[in-house]
């Protein structure tokens, strides 16, 4: 280690890690700036190799193979035929409907999270306890939660048994074997796992609101509702935006584990999400080109959402 240090050229003391370029020729004939660049490139190379080989190249592969008929070994160029088939078959739009239902369910859980957080923030006794309890479902894996919920909502399961015991037999259903109720269960699972996340970030957002602002409003005789709608909610906007966008992206790319375990995409194809459709096309029917085209479409959707997100955050931070 010492040798390495001695090997260095004497350096201008202002030349730190971020130092300005001082053209001192080193023993290897490189300027200091060139040495710094070399060090930097060597430092980032492994990360770029890993991401390049395992992320970028496959994404390019998906884009390319979206235009081919591909079975893994041979692929033939078929132009836009995969895309034409996707847009002419109902399965893609049925899948998109599942994602859209989750996306449209976001405002509901957003409202619940805000109300619960504000109530907890009002110095409710034991708020720490509640926050911890609400968070427990969030840390479980979606796959395990999905399996658990499938058992709870099965025909002879706990939910129907409880409804019967409460004299609400007319509310019992074969929850997972018909369409509207299967979505009810899926959205319930989504809400169940998201409450903790929402409460956590909204409590953090609330505690970032300056206390004297609220005190001043209180002194001016503002009612609870006025403080909520005129101070608290406007100041929570960035947190709300984060929550909505995080869950919006999740609604398009994160449903696999829940849908796979709770309904398996059924009854029929009714609750299949786009990512589950891609999985089935690729790994169950071996239509790799078609699945690639689907995954490119999904990526485009996510790109659009992300672009909206960037513009939104720009506006929120410049205002």
């Amino acid at each position, binding site marked *: 280690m010492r040798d390495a*240090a001695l090997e260095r050229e004497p350096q201008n003391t202002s030349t730190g890690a971020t130092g300005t370029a001082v053209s001192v020729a080193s023993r290897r004939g490189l300027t200091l700036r060139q040495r710094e660049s070399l060090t930097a490139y060597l430092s980032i190379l492994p990360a770029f190799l890993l*991401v390049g080989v395992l992320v970028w190249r*496959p*994404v390019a592969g998906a884009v390319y193979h979206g235009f081919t008929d591909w079975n893994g070994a041979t692929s033939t160029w078929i132009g836009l035929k995969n895309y034409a088939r996707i847009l002419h078959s109902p399965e893609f739009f049925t899948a998109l409907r599942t994602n859209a239902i989750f996306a449209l369910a976001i405002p509901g859980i957003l409202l619940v999270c805000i109300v619960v957080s504000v109530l907890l923030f009002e110095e409710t006794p034991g708020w720490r306890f509640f926050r911890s309890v609400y968070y427990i479902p969030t840390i*479980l894996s979606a796959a395990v939660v999905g399996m658990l*919920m499938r058992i709870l909502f099965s025909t002879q399961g706990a939910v129907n048994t409880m409804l019967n015991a409460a004299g609400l037999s007319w509310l019992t259903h074969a929850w997972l074997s018909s369409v509207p109720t299967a979505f009810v269960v899926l959205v319930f699972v989504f809400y169940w796992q998201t409450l903790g996340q929402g409460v956590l970030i909204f409590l953090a957002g609330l505690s970032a609101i300056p206390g004297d602002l609220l005190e001043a409003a209180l002194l001016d005789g503002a009612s609870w509702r006025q403080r909520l709608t005129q101070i608290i909610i406007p100041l929570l906007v960035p947190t709300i935006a984060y929550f909505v966008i995080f869950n919006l992206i999740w609604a398009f790319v994160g449903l*696999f584990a829940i849908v796979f375990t709770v309904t398996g995409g059924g009854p029929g194809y009714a609750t299949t999400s786009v990512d589950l459709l891609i999985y089935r096309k690729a790994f169950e029917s071996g239509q790799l080109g078609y699945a690639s085209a689907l995954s490119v479409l999904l990526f485009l959707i996510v790109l659009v959402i992300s672009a909206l997100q960037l513009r939104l955050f720009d506006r929120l931070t410049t205002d």
Partner: protein
Amino acid sequence: MRRGFHPIVQLLIVVVLSWFAAVALYPIVFMALTAFKTSVAYIQNPIGPPDGFGYVENFQAMVLRFDVPRLFANTIWYIVLASIISLTVSIPASFAFAKLRFPFRQTLRLAMIATLIVPAITLLVPVYVMMANWGIVDSYLSVVLLWAALAVPNNVFLLGALMRSIPNEVLDAAQIDGASYLERLLRIAIPLSLPGIVTVTIFNVTTWWNDLLIPLVFLQTDERKTITVAAATILGRFGLDTPLLLTGLLFASLPPIILYILLQRTIRRGLVIGAIK
């Protein structure tokens, strides 16, 4: 904020919040209690409490039929390897982006961070074919490499931001004392950003522990599966023995719950970072 609620309103609020807490906890309590039931007892009354906690056959079956110790060992081993790989490549990259000047620095950093939005499902098919050609499908290597690679953009994003806040004076002083670049990285940058490294590691570990898609696609042999995939596939074969199935799910849920109880504060901080920035 504070003051001014009628006691009855206060009580009502606590009742509502408690109701939410009950809904949040019930499925977990149900899972834990049913693990002590026979399947006959479960069919007779799915929601009743077990007749005591002496019936442990479900737990024995976890070891004998479901091979929980091996599944745990698999999962932990894959996660440790993926953590080592992804941190080993992410830390030097983050430090270089934070503290070195070089051509295309901003472009390269943006390219790395933009990779954050690529959904795993988009690259899955080509990666599968590539790994099949490499002969590592159904080997832990496929899952470990893909996990590690997918974590790198987020690691670089968070650690880079953190390392930028290390004071240049400290690094300069070390350099004057003769510390090489590598020494500055190992002795100053890493210790100073340890909280961030812990945070991203907890984030990655929970993501990987809970991941279904990638190990489901790449690992077909039962003995090589992770606990989460095993819960979603092998357990399904137990079919009608619901208490046995729930015991398996309980085992798969315990490590995250224990980890959460032990590391609550750190986990919360990690999750809140992105939200209020």
